């Protein structure tokens, strides 16, 4: 199967592409805002990653993510659950819980020792504890996203926003500001809340792999997760691309299945 394969992860906020060469090595990656047209985002990403790698055709394309049905040129599609599991298992071939914190939703995927999905959980409809939540609260605090992690590192007190709802959390933040809470502690509180929302979704085992844009941008959440659960927490390379990478792995399999 001497062909490149492409995995596309059309997320609700960001879309990601991973190109694998015929040997299964990463030959290119691309990332862009999904925008309002999944189809265009998919096409642009494909063109970008292929031209950067100087590749003119791929043997198989697999789409995943919310927009997986809107990629007319995809050869197959899989849900992000399967793709994240596959991607994580590639790096950590053992039993684990994959915790994916995305722009709009959180997932916990329990992967068996053989790499199959035993079960999974997705958060309910509210964005509390997701990437959108981090953005919203940072915006409320009027602190640029790039700075919140550095500030959080300097926290002197652990606080957690307790609301299930992003809007309520914002109100909570305002109350804390009024009470004179330090910005460092508030920033730390954002990340504590993200992890709190994940932990209350369902049971977690002793080995956790974290993926998604939030851990990519703010590695501190992995530390907080480890502290909170006592589990060993690992982050694969390029955690934001794990779904796309998993999709590309599926594409390699599909290609192998082709005559």
């Amino acid at each position, binding site marked *: 199967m001497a062909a490149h394969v492409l995995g596309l992860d059309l997320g609700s906020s960001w879309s990601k592409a991973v190109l694998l060469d015929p040997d*299964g090595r990463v030959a290119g990656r691309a990332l862009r805002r999904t925008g309002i047209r999944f189809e265009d985002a998919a096409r642009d990403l494909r063109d970008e990653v292929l031209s950067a790698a100087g590749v003119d055709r791929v043997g198989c394309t697999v789409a995943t993510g*919310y927009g997986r049905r809107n990629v007319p040129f995809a050869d197959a599609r*899989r*849900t*992000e*659950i*399967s793709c994240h*599991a*596959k991607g994580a*298992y*590639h790096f950590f*071939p053992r039993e684990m819980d994959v915790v994916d914190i995305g722009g709009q*939703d959180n997932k916990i995927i329990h*992967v068996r020792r*053989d*790499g*199959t*999905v*035993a*079960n*999974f959980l*997705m958060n*309910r*409809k509210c964005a509390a504890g997701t990437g959108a939540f981090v953005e919203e609260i940072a915006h409320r605090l009027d602190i640029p996203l790039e700075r919140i992690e550095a500030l959080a590192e300097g926290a002197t007190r652990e606080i957690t926003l307790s609301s299930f709802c992003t809007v309520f959390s914002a109100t909570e933040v305002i109350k804390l500001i009024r009470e004179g809470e330090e910005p460092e502690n508030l920033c730390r509180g954002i990340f504590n809340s993200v992890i709190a929302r994940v932990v209350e979704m369902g049971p977690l085992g002793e080995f956790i792999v974290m993926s998604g844009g939030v851990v990519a941008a703010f590695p501190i959440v992995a530390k907080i997760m480890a502290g909170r659960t006592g589990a060993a927490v690992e982050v694969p390379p390029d955690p934001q691309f794990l779904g796309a990478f998993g999709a590309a*792995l*599926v594409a*390699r*399999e599909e290609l192998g299945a082709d005559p």
Partner: protein
Amino acid sequence: MPEIKPFRAQKRMKELMAGHFRGVDAAAKDPDRKVAWCTSVGPAELLHSFGFEVYYPENHGAMLGATRSAEKYIPLANALGYSPDICSYLTSDIGAFLAGETPLQRAYGLEGVPRPDVLVYNTNQCRDVQDWFSFYGRRFGVPVIGVNSPTGVSEVTRPHVNAMVAQYQALIPTLEEVSGRRFDPDRFREVMGLSAKTSDLWKECLWQASYRPSPLTFFDACILMGPAVVLRGTPEAVAFYEELLAELKERVDGGVAAVEGERYRVYWEGMPVWGKLRDLALFFQELRTAVVVSTYCNSWVFDAFDPADPFESMARAYLELFIVRSDDAKERIMARLIEEFQVDGVVYHDAKTCPHNSNTRYGLPQRLKERTGVPFIVIYGDLNDLRCFSEEQAKTNIEAFVEQLGPGRAAAGG
């Protein structure tokens, strides 16, 4: 492209349902005839025995959901103090009433919902029905009567049954007064006989889905159950389910699958999402997954009905229902069905506005998985209020669940 295979019997069903609504409407306009509104698992048989035409607001609620008009009406009821967190059948039905509109206008040419002479509830399913009926009782100035059933019942015992029999019997004086007829035990027995037959036939129809491939799905059954709900206790319902059963057996004999290329079989626990019934049916088709059994459609199977002892058996039947039971009883019932229908997975629908039909909130799915080894998924939605339903999230969950059911789908290597 996936398609839903229609049943021949649906034609007859349409006529039956039209006949039912026009019949109730005619009775509402005739001073000599009386209309009773009844909850879906209320004492309909008793009402029929008095010659009432029986109308079911929940069925109307489902129509509002299925026609996706609920969202237009729910806010009207909310504004009156009926919270968006309570039964969305109630809020959409009351909202439609306030707007003076009903899908019965377009479907059957009725001017409005048929006016009740009496409203009769059974709180076996929830308290909402009592509050719902009380609203109409005040509006129409007619009596609201009913029975207050125990819930969370583990085993149906003698004291449970006695308490219910006494309450059913206590309804008789009001029903006599409103109908202008004396209670007729023979007629009651006769109606019970017809209801029992309807229930047996409906059950046999549903159980055809235990064959592989299944000749019908939950989504088909949600449509085909109309007469079991609104016409039980009538000879027409019996004839209809005889016809349907014959057609189903024909499908089974001919190996006709409701879901072409059926790969997996799942259990649907909870209410339908009425406004998305067809969408979800097609979605499961695409995934080659047949929803073969549900708690919901089984709710109109009343094994206990016995014309020889109508009060006692009615009390028993309306207490034995799934919704009335404790979690340990529910787990037993589901475990048996999972086995009988050879189910690969369970989809729980947690309906925001109906906690009574949402069995996901006290750890039941987790315990049942422990017990049976069959995996599950929970989707969050609602029966009527589509504002509580994220289609994308539900579909991703279902699709990922089906991928999970396929052994080795996400397996090692790559």
